């Protein structure tokens, strides 16, 4: 008899609904094309907005989880916020190849207080950049971008006046340059003119090879560091463990440092600049170290399909 069965079913459904007042999320099944195969992934559109800092009305996102932890999955490390898997802004699964990196990212998420401040989560942002590749950059693009800084490297450009500053540059920058020359067996001279110094071919080749030796993950971190320091030599000194991040940032800001010594330091500008630069460069250095082949467990090349 249909009618009583239906009412019975309906009754059970309403009873269960009362007990579990969870909203029913509409889930899509989305096809992702990765490297020629099609992967199916269940994606929750309501959850997707969580992975940006703002919800649809543009307000700041509140901290919507209690604890961030890591799990290992087929050689990759994922981050779980409470029970949900962390995802990138475009909805891809968030995976990193290294355990300490995953731990540090989980710490970033755990450090958020009431609202989520994505601008303070450098490691998460760097990982998202590798996973999503939002600007569709190939390896060649990134390497070229890094090498671009070689001829405009900060520590190669010396200003001739005032005399005291010239001496300071020699004192602080020359040792690093000397280490660089001997460590990589290249020739590179500083210049005092506005024109970029001439880069010997051998130097360019050696540096290109060195930068190319980094895997996809480390490369993104390295490029971020070079971009912030405006110097390849300083970033290489950091990744080769020759300089600390604090010292490298100091060298990158040498002129500003000199000027503030004379004209005074403005805390809300100069100090903020220092700390922001330090946090970014430190994140870049950690990213490079933790994602380098010997530390990471897998070596998936995300850029292998692009030229």
């Amino acid at each position: 008899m249909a009618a009583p069965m239906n009412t019975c079913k309906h009754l059970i459904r309403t009873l269960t609904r009362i007990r579990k007042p969870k909203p029913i999320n509409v889930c899509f099944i989305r096809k992702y094309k990765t490297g020629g195969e099609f992967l199916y992934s269940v994606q929750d559109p309501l959850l997707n907005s969580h992975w940006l800092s703002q919800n649809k009305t543009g307000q700041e996102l509140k901290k919507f989880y209690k604890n961030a932890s890591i799990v290992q999955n087929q050689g990759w490390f994922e981050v779980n916020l409470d029970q949900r898997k962390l995802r990138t802004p475009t909805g891809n699964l968030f995976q990193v190849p290294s355990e300490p990196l995953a731990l540090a990212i989980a710490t970033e998420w755990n450090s958020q207080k009431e609202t989520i401040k994505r601008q303070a989560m450098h490691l998460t942002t760097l990982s998202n950049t590798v996973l999503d590749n939002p600007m569709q950059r190939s390896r060649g693009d990134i390497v070229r971008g890094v090498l671009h800084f070689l001829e405009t490297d900060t520590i190669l450009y010396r200003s001739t006046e005032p005399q005291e500053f010239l001496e300071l540059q020699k004192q602080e920058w020359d040792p690093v340059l000397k280490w660089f020359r001997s460590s990589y067996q290249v020739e590179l001279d500083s210049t005092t003119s506005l024109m970029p110094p001439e880069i010997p071919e051998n130097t360019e080749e050696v540096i290109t090879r060195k930068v190319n030796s980094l895997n996809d993950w480390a490369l993104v971190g390295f490029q971020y560091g070079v971009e912030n320091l405006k110097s390849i030599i300083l970033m290489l000194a950091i990744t080769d463990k020759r300089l600390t991040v604090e010292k490298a940032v100091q060298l990158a800001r040498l002129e500003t440092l000199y000027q503030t010594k004379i004209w005074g330091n403005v805390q809300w500008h100069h100090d903020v600049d220092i700390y922001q630069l330090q946090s970014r460069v430190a994140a870049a250095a950690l990213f490079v170290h933790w994602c380098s082949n010997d530390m990471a467990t897998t070596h998936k090349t995300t850029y292998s399909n692009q030229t």
Partner: protein
Amino acid sequence: MFTPSHNKMANQQKVNLGRLLYKRLSREMKITANPKEKLYDTPVFQYIANQFREHQVTTQKLCKGQNEVMMVGQTYLCMLESLRKSEELAQMYKTTERSIEQSANLVGLKLPTVDH
């Protein structure tokens, strides 16, 4: 040149630096971590503690130089400290942007009314 006593002193310095780093790292993690949870239980802290234990004898893992693991620890500490300090400065110097009406009031003007 490198007498045994010299080595001993260098080692002691290294140990002291290690202790200092450990102390500062713990302090930073305590500040940023969840107050409800005990720091000792978190997997992050256990990882750091394990690293210190494993590399007691030598920190030279790769051919990249001495004190490599220490430098990684120092870099992480630098990142945590810099983030905290920049946040503190932002809080200290934050101001709210004035609305258009308030900016107009500064020079004694009022906004024009719009008839709908």
